């Protein structure tokens, strides 16, 4: 069977066959029963696929997606860009272009110097994607503050508390024999909850309340919980793991460790 005719059959199924190719194919089909059978079978397969109707995702999927996104990512910078575009638009409308351009250049220079010498507690958001997989971060601002393993009956895993500039985040990698609630209690004046990132395929749900981040997890939980520090000493921060309404594990993070 000629490869050319097989390709023509596929092109016909996809509706991209040219009139001359169609003519050639039809002529070949008349003389070749094997080719006819192939065309019939391929068309049949295509028809079956067309009959399959799309599935409806669960109604809360959209909410789940929206809740998992850190929408602060684009807002601050855009505001500054709007400000810059307004400023430059005004400059170029005047006849004192050179003077304004120099002033603008100086202003940009000052802003850039301030940015380069910014305080560790500046409000500029750090791209959250940089925080996970921190192999590339070699600067001294990146610190692992605490790292420990949990080996209890029914709970195994690793907890890490890391800090980078004004961000502090816990990485949880836990396997449990039943569904669990993982609570982070924190002081709102010293820390503010920023984001939660599920990493693995385990089923985890996030709930937040005043001074509390609650993760509802099934048997696997690998996620990051990110906070922003308001002060250098952001403690107390406490981790509780609860199963069937009872606390089965508690860890108080403190500066001394």
């Amino acid at each position: 069977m000629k490869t050319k005719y097989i390709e023509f059959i596929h092109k016909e199924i996809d509706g991209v066959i040219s009139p001359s190719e169609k003519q050639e194919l039809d002529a070949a089909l008349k003389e070749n029963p094997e080719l006819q059978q192939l065309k019939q079978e391929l068309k049949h397969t295509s028809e079956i696929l067309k009959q399959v109707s799309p599935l409806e995702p669960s109604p809360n999927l959209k909410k789940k997606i929206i809740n998992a996104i850190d929408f602060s990512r684009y807002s601050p910078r855009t505001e500054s860009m709007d400000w810059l575009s307004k400023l430059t638009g005004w400059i170029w409308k005047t006849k004192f272009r050179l003077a304004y351009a120099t002033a603008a250049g100086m202003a940009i220079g000052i802003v850039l110097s301030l940015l380069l010498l910014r305080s560790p507690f500046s409000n500029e958001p750090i791209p959250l994607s940089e925080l996970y997989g921190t192999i590339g971060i070699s600067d001294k601002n990146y610190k692992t503050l605490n790292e420990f393993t949990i080996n209890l009956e029914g709970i195994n895993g690793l907890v890490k508390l890391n800090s980078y500039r004004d961000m502090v985040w816990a990485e949880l990698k836990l396997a449990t024999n039943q569904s669990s609630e993982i609570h982070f209690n924190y002081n709102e004046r010293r820390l503010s909850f920023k984001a939660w990132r599920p990493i693995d395929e385990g089923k985890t749900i996030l709930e937040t309340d005043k001074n509390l981040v609650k993760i509802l997890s099934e048997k696997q939980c690998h996620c990051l919980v990110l906070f922003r520090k308001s002060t250098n000493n952001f403690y107390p921060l406490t981790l509780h793991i609860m199963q069937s309404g009872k606390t089965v594990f508690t860890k108080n993070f403190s500066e001394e460790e």
Partner: protein
Amino acid sequence: MKEMDDRQLVQECLKGSKNAFEQLVDKYNKVIFNLAYRMTGKTDDAEDITQKAFIKAYEKLESYNPKFEFYSWLYRIAVNESLNFLKAKRKYKELDPDMITGEKNPEECCLDNELGLRVQAAIMELDPRYRILVLLNHFQSCSYKEISHTLNIPEKTVKSRLFTARKLLKEIIIQKETI
């Protein structure tokens, strides 16, 4: 209010509009969910992949090139997420074959009809490399050019892989009498 197209919505997102991204999620979550479901065969996994794909899309929104269709860019992210998921799952399976059964839960059986399930079983027998071609062409109605852009492979490769995939699927369906 005039409905905005995808490119305008992306621009609004980049200006900090949460509502604009919600509109994109509204428009595409079902399509991405179905793509992920046909790749993985499980609704729970498909929902997780859909969520991750949208998170990634939001984080990388600045890298979206408006010269191309937004959905094609989003498909690429979802396809990569699905393939990564399958790769990770395969490794996991190698470690402990009892951990993942691949069986459907009752909810999934209700969601999908009988024909859908049988087609899905046949699709799952295809290598993911071929499976994705069938999904993009038959379920998402993507042209060769769109598939080429989504998967970042030449159009010629798209054609040859799609034709092979279709032939394999036909053989699975006929030989195993799945349908």
